[in-house]
């Protein structure tokens, strides 16, 4: 450890900033060295002068009359129960988070309300929309516009994607053709 310069060592000693061993060593030197004692005395006097003047300057400062408890009483009393409220809000937040988490866990396991199928059946609200059958093309008879013309029927043209099965019945979803095995 690098020794302090003498001025710093004196200041540290006067301010009580030396450790026990360093203080003992310094006091041994003090007993033997009159010049060192004089320097320490000078620092002590300055320290005491500064301290007493600083205390006098600070203590002489008048306290502002507006610095009263009444000025903050409303705030203090209003915010006093805050920790309790905060704890309550925190507890509710944790409870809510647990509920959401448990819901998510149950959903991942399956619909807890589905008592008929397997547990893997998704809930209707969250499943993909059910496929609806495409209605077959309709042939709508139209009223005869005039007596002298031929009666015509306007026939709706099937869409290009429609197959023959479209016209055969209500279940008109295109069925996947089974492929032959290898």
């Amino acid at each position, binding site marked *: 450890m690098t020794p302090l310069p003498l*001025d*710093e060592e004196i*200041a*540290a000693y006067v*301010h*009580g*900033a030396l450790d026990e061993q360093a203080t003992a060593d310094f006091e041994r030197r003090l007993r033997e060295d009159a010049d060192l004692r*004089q320097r320490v*005395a*000078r620092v002590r*006097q*300055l*320290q*005491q*002068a*500064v*301290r*007493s*003047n*600083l*205390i*006098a*300057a*600070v*203590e*002489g*400062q008048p*306290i*502002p009359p*507006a*610095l*009263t*408890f009444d*000025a*903050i*009483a409303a*705030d*203090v*009393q209003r*915010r*006093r129960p*805050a*920790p309790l409220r905060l704890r309550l809000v925190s507890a509710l937040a944790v409870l809510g988070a647990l509920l959401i988490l448990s819901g998510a866990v149950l959903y991942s396991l399956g619909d807890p309300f589905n008592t008929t199928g397997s547990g893997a059946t998704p809930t209707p609200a969250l499943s993909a929309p059910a496929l609806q059958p495409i209605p077959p093309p309709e042939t709508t008879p139209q009223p005869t516009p005039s007596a002298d013309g031929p009666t015509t029927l306007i026939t709706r043209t099937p869409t290009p994607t429609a197959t023959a099965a479209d016209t055969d019945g209500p279940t008109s979803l295109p069925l996947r053709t089974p492929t032959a095995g290898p």
Partner: protein
Amino acid sequence: MPELPDLIDRWRNGDVQAARLIYDMHRARVFRLAYSLLNNNEDAEEVAQDTLAYALMHIEQYDAARARFTTWLHTITVSRVRDRQRRRSLSPIRLVDWLRRGGQPIDDAPTPEQWSAEQLDREQVWQAVQQLPPPLREAIVLRYWAGHSFQEMAQIMNCPLGTAQSRVRRGFEQLRDALTAVR
């Protein structure tokens, strides 16, 4: 007069009268610490009020096993003072003062007799303290005026023990130089 720990317990249980007593016991000390560090009456008043309100509203955070109540209050005060200094960018030393000090010799050390409290002017000491950089000013005020131990100072200034010690030493050296220069 009830003891402080009793008042703190009573306030923790919602006794507003106890809060009032705690406030009255500490308002002057908190204000004067803030004033010593800010050298501005209005700023010090605001900091003191803010400090006391915060302390009373967060009394649950005070742990008597870790620090004296005064140390805790002074920690809050110093933190508020630093915020205020940052916000207002208070200069620790006016340019004219710095120029004036820079032109004067500081190496003619006075005799011990010259350093009597009576001969040192209170205003000179006050101005010299105010001209210290904020960390050194904190250290000098907390040590000389508030009488805190170095351990408490380290806690209040949020620094290592050795730093608290060196700040007092350096602050004192700068005070000595400044006071020598003005004589």
